[in-house]
């Protein structure tokens, strides 16, 4: 099995479990919608918090499918087959990351725009938000796959996963929100790019090692 075949198979499985993606999207929308109810509909208030709300809601929503990303394969014995498929373990992690981003990160990215508009974000800031969310969701998928691999077989994996992922995502959150609110967003984008470049090789390598350890 090569990388493309594995990604195709995982995408087909994700389509069959479409409710997982829908749950993440609905969580994103509903959580974002709660803020105007709690803070009132004032445009100035909402516009001020909109980037942070969208980022935090996207972060939390993307965590939802992570416990099944590798957990299901571990429980039904598929992880052994994946590790014996001829792909290196980090290749399996890359495939899982790509599928998580395509089925969760990308849909969140697409729906972030309308949510931000609902939160009265100035329209000229929308492209900045979406441009920052692109590397942001990719980093989240990379770190999320790593957390999913690290917690394989753990007794409270669903609880442990956000406890690992969320602290690791704090720098991305800081620079992601700053890319929208700062008068000089270029620096924040450079930082996001640097974090993506660091996570892209390190997270799959670490996740692959964690998968091998879990399969022992």
């Amino acid at each position: 099995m090569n990388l493309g075949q594995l990604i195709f198979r995982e995408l087909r499985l994700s389509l069959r479990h479409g409710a997982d993606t829908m749950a993440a999207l609905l969580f994103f929308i509903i959580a974002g919608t709660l803020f105007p109810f709690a803070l009132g509909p004032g445009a100035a208030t909402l516009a001020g918090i909109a980037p942070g709300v969208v980022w935090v809601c996207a972060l939390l929503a993307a965590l939802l499918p992570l416990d099944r990303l590798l957990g299901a394969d571990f429980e039904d014995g598929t992880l052994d087959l994946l590790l014996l498929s001829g792909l290196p373990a980090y290749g399996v992690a890359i495939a899982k990351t790509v599928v998580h981003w395509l089925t969760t990160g990308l849909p969140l990215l697409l729906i972030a725009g309308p949510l931000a508009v609902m939160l009265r974000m100035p329209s000229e800031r929308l492209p900045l938000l979406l441009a920052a969310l692109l590397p942001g969701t990719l980093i989240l998928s990379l770190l999320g796959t790593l957390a999913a691999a690290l917690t394989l077989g753990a007794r409270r994996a669903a609880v442990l996963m956000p406890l690992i992922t969320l602290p690791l995502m704090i720098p991305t959150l800081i620079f992601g929100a700053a890319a929208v609110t700062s008068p000089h967003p270029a620096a924040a984008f450079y930082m996001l790019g640097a974090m993506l470049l660091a996570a892209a090789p390190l997270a799959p390598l670490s996740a692959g090692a964690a998968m091998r350890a879990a399969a022992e």
Partner: protein
Amino acid sequence: MTLSDLRLVISRGLNHSLGATSILAIRIFALFTASNLSVFRGERLVFSNVSFSLASGGALLLRGANGAGKSSLLRALAGLTPLAAGELRWDGENVLGDLSWYVSRLAWLGHLDAVKPALTAAEHVPVAFLEPLGLGRFADLPVRLLSAGQKRRLALARVMASKAALWLLDEPTTGLDTESEARFVALCEAHRAAGGMIIASTHTPLALYEVDVLAL
């Protein structure tokens, strides 16, 4: 009729019933040797100094009480569990030095079936390989609708479809009825007749010809 003649007859008969002449045609000539294997699980030494050799057409049954290390030995042979000591050689070559080369020559069946409830049987294994195990009419059914024995047969069909030379099977007949077990034995004999090798752990006697037994 000699034993090899008998295996050839079984192989030809099976291929004829499949309507294919090369479905199990491996025709490799290899020697797989394990020398002084030792494996730890956590702090516990599961087994030590296990050695055997298996030539093309051979079969090795692993016997022992629960927890004796049959599954651990199979996982070590697959490269999933690291060896504390010992070496594995394929025609004299150390296989653990190049795992990707080695795993392309083995097919794995763990004690879990590694099938996905949302996918159909045909999405797991090509239809041609479902027929010999009596799963042809279930090809388009989602696996969640199959019984436990049918799922096991599907997992066995995947082993057969791999066309790998070495089959590593952990309790392969779990959940199989008598007829399915007979089909499975015939497939094993056909695989051996084509030059393949089988290492299996089993609590129930398998009606294979000229098997070696390794007691753990």
